[in-house]
């Protein structure tokens, strides 16, 4: 473990100030829950960090008629205690499984996106909600879908001098049922072996539409298109989706690592779909 005392840390109070520092070679620092661990373990490190926690645009959380915008430096705990948590149960369900209370108070949603871990609990609801990433740079802003912003493990489409300003979440129509479960060695402070989140619209006992997102079973969070289509018209009750578990497993591309084997992840992903049917049928 290395000391970080050679670092300089700028604390800009404006978006434009932050963008200029980043364009000049600075690296962004928000809650530090991942970055500080990584910096202390690595040989090479940036000379200058740019702390983003003082910038009003990045600290804002606003809820409009049909959508919400969450500033990149808003913490998970702040989102959980905001009115948005009641409006979007899937966001509450997923964010409340991140780390423990202290990690949730420090870590930010923008940091979760920037890290682009395939296991990120915070990304599952964002994929389900078809979130857009709002980016700010020296020459202006752009918005792109999260699913194209995230390229692979730790890889994002962020240009030099750009920063993640906020996440834009369009509210889903109607009142879908929502499901989130992550499987790991214990419930708190774990990185998922596999996780599954879903939004399910049901009419007259049958699924009218479904969105499914899987974590830790591919290089990025995955929306299994075949399974989403196959769910339409199906009933929700214990055991009702057992035949789709294999189809779901086929859509995954997991790896072996220290937490689990690829085969186990594939199997767990299928089991989570079966569990979803039972859990949601009890919820109605």
């Amino acid at each position: 473990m290395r000391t970080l005392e050679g670092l300089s840390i700028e604390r800009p109070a404006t978006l434009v100030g932050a963008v200029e520092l980043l364009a000049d070679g600075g690296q962004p620092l928000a809650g530090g829950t991942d970055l500080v661990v990584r910096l202390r373990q690595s040989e090479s490190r940036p000379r200058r960090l740019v702390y983003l926690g003082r910038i009003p645009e990045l600290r804002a959380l606003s809820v409009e008629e049909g959508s919400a915008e969450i500033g990149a430096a808003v913490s998970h705990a702040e989102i959980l205690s905001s009115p948005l948590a009641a409006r979007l149960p899937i966001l509450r369900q997923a964010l409340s499984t991140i780390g423990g209370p202290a990690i949730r108070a420090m870590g930010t949603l923008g940091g979760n996106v920037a890290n682009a871990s395939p296991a990120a609990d915070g990304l599952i609801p964002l994929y389900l909600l078809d979130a857009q990433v709002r980016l700010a740079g020296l020459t202006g802003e752009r918005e792109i879908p999260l699913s194209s912003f995230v390229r692979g493990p730790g890889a994002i489409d962020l240009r030099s001098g750009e920063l993640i300003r906020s996440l834009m979440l369009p509210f889903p129509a109607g009142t879908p049922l929502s499901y989130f479960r992550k499987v790991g060695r214990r419930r708190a402070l774990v990185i998922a072996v596999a996780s599954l989140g879903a939004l399910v619209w049901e009419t007259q006992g049958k699924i009218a539409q479904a969105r499914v997102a899987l974590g830790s079973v591919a290089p990025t969070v995955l929306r299994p298109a075949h399974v989403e289509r196959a769910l339409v018209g199906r009933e929700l009750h214990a055991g009702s989706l057992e035949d789709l578990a294999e189809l779901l497993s086929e859509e995954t591309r997991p790896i072996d690592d220290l937490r689990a084997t690829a085969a186990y992840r594939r199997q767990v992903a299928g089991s989570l779909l079966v569990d979803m049917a039972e859990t949601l049928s009890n919820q109605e």
Partner: protein
Amino acid sequence: MRLEFELNGRRTVVNIPPGRRLLDLLREDLGLPGTKEGCGEGECGACTVLVNGQPTLACLALAAHVQGTAVCTVEGLAQAGELHPLQNAFIEHGAVQCGFCTPGLLMASYALLQKNPNPTRHEVREYLAGNLCRCTGYDQVIDAVLSAAKGQRCP
């Protein structure tokens, strides 16, 4: 950098490298070794302190994170020579064995009772999920927090 913050109710000004961890600042520069370093990477909760009332891991927080904030450590719990009711409850319930996780558990429990003065057993378990104890187990800790909650509110 010139760092100015409130520490256990006292205005504190130090000149330190901005990458200095809050943990090292507290333990080494300011003589408050109550906050412990367990894992040093945010997995164990032994270094939990409060920053503006929020539970915070001092091993992951840099000096730059606490500029202008109010920080409360385990040394700030006792007032005027009297242990805090949570500390007394930990003693009464035998919620301590080696004691290394205790400051972090106390601070996390304190943060919980500030937010939720009457937690259920389940809520206490959920809130302390980020604090690991490797010797005695958690039941005595949970009993202590529940009894402190029943006894009185945090000052």
